[in-house]
């Protein structure tokens, strides 16, 4: 069966619909059919993590998932992090930490960290390293990313304790 299928899902809060062949990956669907090119493809075999998005809250590799498997799902991509033109707290922390250089791996790290901080709002350095060991960055040597995550977690904790 190669006929295009209707695919409807919620992406970054909006209901989106397009047709796609059953073999089309979620990554290609997001990038090519929905124009959400913030999600990047670094290896297309599930190792580098650049294509990580959230599907129903879980961090998944969109190069290893078919678009049809995401029918009816709620998907968040890097384009969904900022709201009303304002960077969210994680984005600000990463910017303040000079976390990234070329930016190609960035969407994967941002989505993986977004999921991490929901599961574990105050991760230790070792926990961050473990969780992000499936995301490859070739530019930074990782320390700036690590610092960004620690900064984001601290900022979130401070914001919550002040409420």
């Amino acid at each position, binding site marked *: 069966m190669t006929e295009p299928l209707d695919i409807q899902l919620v992406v970054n809060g909006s209901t989106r619909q397009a047709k796609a*062949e059953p*073999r*089309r990956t979620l990554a290609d669907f997001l*990038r*090519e059919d929905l*124009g*959400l*090119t*913030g*999600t*990047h*493809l*670094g*290896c*297309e*075999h599930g*190792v*580098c993590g*650049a294509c990580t998005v959230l599907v129903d809250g879980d961090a998944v590799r969109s190069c290893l998932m078919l678009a049809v498997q995401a029918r009816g799902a709620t998907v968040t*991509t*890097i*384009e969904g*992090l*900022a709201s009303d033109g304002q*960077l969210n707290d994680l*984005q600000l922390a*990463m*910017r*303040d930490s*000079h976390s*990234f*250089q*070329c*930016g*190609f*791996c*960035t*969407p994967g790290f*941002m989505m993986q960290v977004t999921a991490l901080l929901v599961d574990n709002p105050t991760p230790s350095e070792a926990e*961050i*390293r*473990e969780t*992000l*060991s*499936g*995301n*490859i*960055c*070739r*530019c*930074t*040597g*990782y*320390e*700036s*990313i*690590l610092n960004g995550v620690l900064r984001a977690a601290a900022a979130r904790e401070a914001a919550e304790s002040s409420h």
Partner: protein
Amino acid sequence: MADTTTQPIAQRFVGESVKRSEDVRILTGTGSYVDDIQLPGMLHAAFLRSPLAHARILSVDVSAARQLPGVVVAMTGEDVQGLLAPSAPSPGIFGPAPVKFTIVATDKVRLVGDPIAVVVAESRYLAEDALQLVEVEYDELVPVANTDQALDPTSTPIFEDLGSNVISAPTTNTFGDVAAVFAKADRVVRATLRQHRHQNVPMECRGVVADYNPDTKALTVHGSNQGVGIAKMVMSAQLGLPADKVRVLCGDICGSFGLKIGAAREEIAACALSKARGRPVRWIEDRNEHLSSSGHAREETLEAEAAVTDDGDILGLKVRMVVDTGAYPGMGGMIGSIVQGMLPGPYSLGALEFEFAAGVTNKATYVAYRGPWAAETFCRERMVDIIAKELGLDPVEVRRRNIRYQGDNPGTMITGRSLVGATARESVEKMAELVDLAAFRARQAEAREEGRYLGIGMATYIEAAPGPRGGGGMGNETMRMRLEADGTLTVFTAQMPHGQSHETTLAQVAADEFGVPFEKVRVVAGDSDQVPFGFTGGSRAATMAGGASLHTARELRQKVLDISSHLLEASADDLEIVDGRVAVKGVPVTAKPLADIVASASEPGRLPEGLDATFEVARSYDGGEGGWSGGTHCAIVEVDAETGLVAIERYFVVEDCGKMINPAVVEGQVRGGVAQGIGAVLLERSAYDDNAQFLAGTFMDYLLPTMTEVPRIEIHHLETIPLDPDVNFRGVGEGGMIVAPPTICNAIEDALAPFGVEVREQHLPPLRILELIGAID
């Protein structure tokens, strides 16, 4: 001529870790990489690639591929060649190649991954479907799998017009009186050292969107490239298009690290196909193509002999270097002269004999990778430790004996360049302070009692980024700046940033020098119609583009002040630009926004006739007095003798890149380079078998360092005594990758001393460690 040596403006941005201009788009997913470009009517190209290392092509049949619905073009190598200018030379990296070959293979395939046919279809999926329908008949040839075979005159020539596989016949150069120096030596220490084949691996593969407009007969190339001007030049020559009909644009780019220079064969083919069809054609390399055929680096052997005294003086060196250049012409044949020049490093050698040879093999092309000449540092810094071990001396003491302080007579490298301003010795001393060697040795001894193997290793390097004046230097860097009607300063740079943060750092320099807030500077890069000719590479940006930014801003500021003097009826010498306003010095109430100055200048009668009232300046910069980057790294490692795994416990960097424009950017460059060095030693290898079959085509085979392998890097900055009155920023892009491999190898050899292990290669994954300690055969 106006006096341009006015008081320096108080610097507000240079030296600060200013937040990057690039980050908002990167963090919101709104960057624009080549794969993000979608054009109406765009087609997708895919290449059929050779599964064989070396074979004659008997036939290529694309007829079935052509029939597949959705396929627009299916072409053989001959078909593609017919689309190019008949006069087009075979493309080398920096100009015509020394051997003949076609863009897509026609007569033979020369490596696993060589392109044989191309399909252009309505989608990448369809193009790849069609590739499965292409039929190729081969006559397999004996592969040339290593340089021993390549330098053997009886090996089958990979390029028939070369007549052999020797692309650089062995040549020897000597500096100083080698025989006399070796005669004086108490002993000669010998070792054969090897750097293995590994590669750049930017997270974004190569790619292009070619957009030929049949009406205007103009080609727009959206690329991922370190220099739009070089790509334009190649594309223009290959397609036979006048220069004004080719425009190369680059948006955001990942990595490269030396790989994406010029125009790749696949990119040329995509442009030719767009021209042939009058529709945009996109080619985006996948990771398997990238690992097998984008290019590899390093595979080099260095046989070294050091003439030494028993006290640890290194009198001279003899080095014989052989490079495996892979198949197509890249940088392999030209690396020898740079390695030769840099081999002495900061050491006071009395003589050097250097022999260089290079052979063509059926493997991926040798490309530049972050510090392409790093073999010199690996060879020298391993030799220092090998010498120290043989003499029973501490490696730090051997470095102390042979590297001078900056304050001493700086001396000259035996290969010619002055060492003025090099702070290698200072970096060694600083490192000795940071790591308490005596305490470490005590801890190491205790650990050994428990069967734990700790080691410490150090290595020192200098990098000509750009090097002192008068040593060849880096040519010129051209920059253009324009004051816009709204008071914004636009900086047109020849740099093509791909992670180096030039949009931020060049703006910092320009803002300070011109007198506007950082936010009012916009850096334009990556458009061959707008930016000067140039490229990013060789760690040139800090000095060359930073310096060009300073001097161009200074000249434009003077021009604006000269124009303002007529508008404000004051002498230019009495005016200043502060925070985007022109004012009489010390009289803030006179301040006029730059936008008002630009507007007034165009009003009739406001300026004397004949005055140049363009708010624009273009100029080039030669690097000024230049200077050396450099430093010393130190690793403390623990080797697990059961598993062969190496853990890096601490990693220290003492580095000197002169005055830092943006310390966070500098540290990012250092850490990224060190991480690549860690990967090179512990993980990465572009492996081939004995038949030149490629074995590392996925990220499960080619392992990259992750957050679990790279420790925090402890960085200490030294700052060179300024050599230049204005520009003392130095390049820092390559140093980490140049010096980390010998640092880690030295530490591993130290850790394995109880086993009597001699580390002579650079790649030390767990299996190799276990072999070295005799745990496995």
